[in-house]
């Protein structure tokens, strides 16, 4: 194990939070992933008084992935945690106040906008929502019972516990295939179960997975139940073409079937589409003037670090423009 320190600047927060001058923040950014951090970099650099509420996963989704291969400027690829840390260092450098707090409630009906966390309230003249997306669950019997005890969506966190064991990865996209490859460092056997008869993942991941002797595939199949008494012992799988079911032995199940936007807390205030994504125009504006949105919480299509960062930059520039007109 290499020693790689990861730093998150953490300031305690309790009660009503404003900046040092006692005024509301000019900008409150909600979410500490690539979109939120890039927004904070741009806003900080534009000398906008900014605080960033990082939420439960500092660094966002890259922080929980093994590596990022397609972020420009890193020709050899870069560790997900390291990339997240670099984003954060840059936001820090431009003076954004980074606070490890999760939002529980917002009130966008009054201005300055009010954002509550478990510990207190923050006020901002403008807000950027960049809460990202969370792993989608299978929604099948056994999943809740074993979540965190045999069912996981974080291979970098939990891969270690499956040394010389058999694991199943559910899904066929980039994340599923990349994490399956990562899990072969520990597991004796990794079985990818995918509902289609070919992978959706980028060709380079497919080639790597196909060439890996520890990885095998069960095609055109869905997992219907996670089995086990005290620990996971296997899954029940149904072939969607033949309708045949079979039991597959496994010690753990990693679920990578896509993401869901983390927009619950904004429902009723911001307009959401039928999948829960926050609706925005081409300038990252929501239905409420002064509230902007960036990253995966508004992006059902691409969900890339570089695009999240791009929309974060755009949202910050729009927020700055909005604040310039603010009386």
């Amino acid at each position, binding site marked *: *194990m290499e*020693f*790689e*320190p*990861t*730093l*998150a*600047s*953490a300031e*305690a*927060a*309790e009660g009503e939070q404003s900046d040092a001058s006692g005024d509301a923040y000019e900008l409150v950014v909600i979410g500490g992933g690539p979109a939120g951090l890039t927004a904070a970099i741009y806003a900080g650099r534009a000398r906008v008084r900014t605080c960033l509420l990082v939420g*439960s*996963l*500092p*660094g966002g989704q890259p*922080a*929980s992935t093994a590596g990022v291969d397609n972020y420009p400027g890193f020709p050899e690829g870069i560790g997900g*945690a390291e990339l*997240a840390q670099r984003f954060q*260092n840059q936001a820090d450098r431009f003076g954004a106040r980074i606070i*490890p707090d*999760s939002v529980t409630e917002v009130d966008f009906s009054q201005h300055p906008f009010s954002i509550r966390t*478990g*510990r207190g309230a923050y006020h901002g003249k403008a807000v950027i929502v960049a809460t990202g997306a969370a792993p989608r669950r299978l929604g099948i019997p056994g999943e809740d019972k074993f*979540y*965190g*005890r*045999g*069912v*996981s969506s*974080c291979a*970098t*966190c*939990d891969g*270690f*516990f499956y040394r010389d064991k058999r694991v199943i990865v559910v899904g066929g996209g980039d994340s599923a295939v990349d994490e399956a490859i990562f899990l072969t460092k520990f597991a004796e056997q990794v079985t990818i179960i995918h509902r289609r008869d070919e992978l959706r993942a980028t060709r380079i991941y497919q080639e790597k997975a196909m060439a890996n002797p520890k990885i095998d595939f069960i095609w055109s199949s869905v997992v219907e139940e996670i089995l086990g008494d*005290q*620990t*996971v012992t296997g899954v029940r799988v149904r072939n969607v073409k033949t309708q045949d079911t079979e039991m597959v032995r496994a010690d*753990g199940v990693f679920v990578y079937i896509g993401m869901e936007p983390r927009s619950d807390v904004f429902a009723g205030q911001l307009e959401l589409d039928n999948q829960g994504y926050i609706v925005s125009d081409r300038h990252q504006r929501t239905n409420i003037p002064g509230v902007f949105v960036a990253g995966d919480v508004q992006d059902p299509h691409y969900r890339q670090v570089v695009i999240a960062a791009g929309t974060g930059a755009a949202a910050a520039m729009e927020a700055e423009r909005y604040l310039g007109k603010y009386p």
Partner: protein
Amino acid sequence: MPLLNEDVKQQVREQLAGLESPVRLVMFTQEFECDFCAETRQLVQEVAGLSDQLEAEIYDFVEDEEQAEDYGIDKIPAVAVVGEEDDYGIRFYGIPSGYEFTSLLEAIRRVATGDAGLTGETLRFLSQLSDPVHLQVFVTPTCPYCPQAVVLAHQMALASPMVQADMVEAQEFPHLSTKYQVMGVPRTVINESTFVEGAAPESLVLQKLQESVANEEE
């Protein structure tokens, strides 16, 4: 070779600037250092060098039996983050590296201020505890969700003399991972028998703590 490079050192210096009071990093290793004992000792010594308010104390788990007992250390490597006067029960078992380095810095800052930073509801419950509570938070250094659980447990230890809170690095203590059936992290074990999966919010951990205490009173 130093564990912390100059960039990281500079950041840590900034983060630890203005510590309100002295903090001691009490570290236990042994003569023939265990896996990660040497690295943990070196890390503690390097971090201690980054603030005038910090001091590293290194003990031998075998030879300094008395100190090990005083601090309730039962495995190594171990680090207790201790105030000038008060030992709040904040422990790290295994190396606080990777994401857990954040938890170490947070523990240092919390001990220096003495501010637990918990809600009134949690503080009220903790102030009424009549029996000891032991929190063990299992982590891996590559788990970005884990520091949230560790920091919360340490905040509870800081708030109450009845609470001891340990970070336990699962890979270094596989027998404990097996004993407590850790298959995913973070996993918080409350008094041996109540479990919290994941980086749960303060309100949920409080609820589990209340359940655990109520069960024991029955």
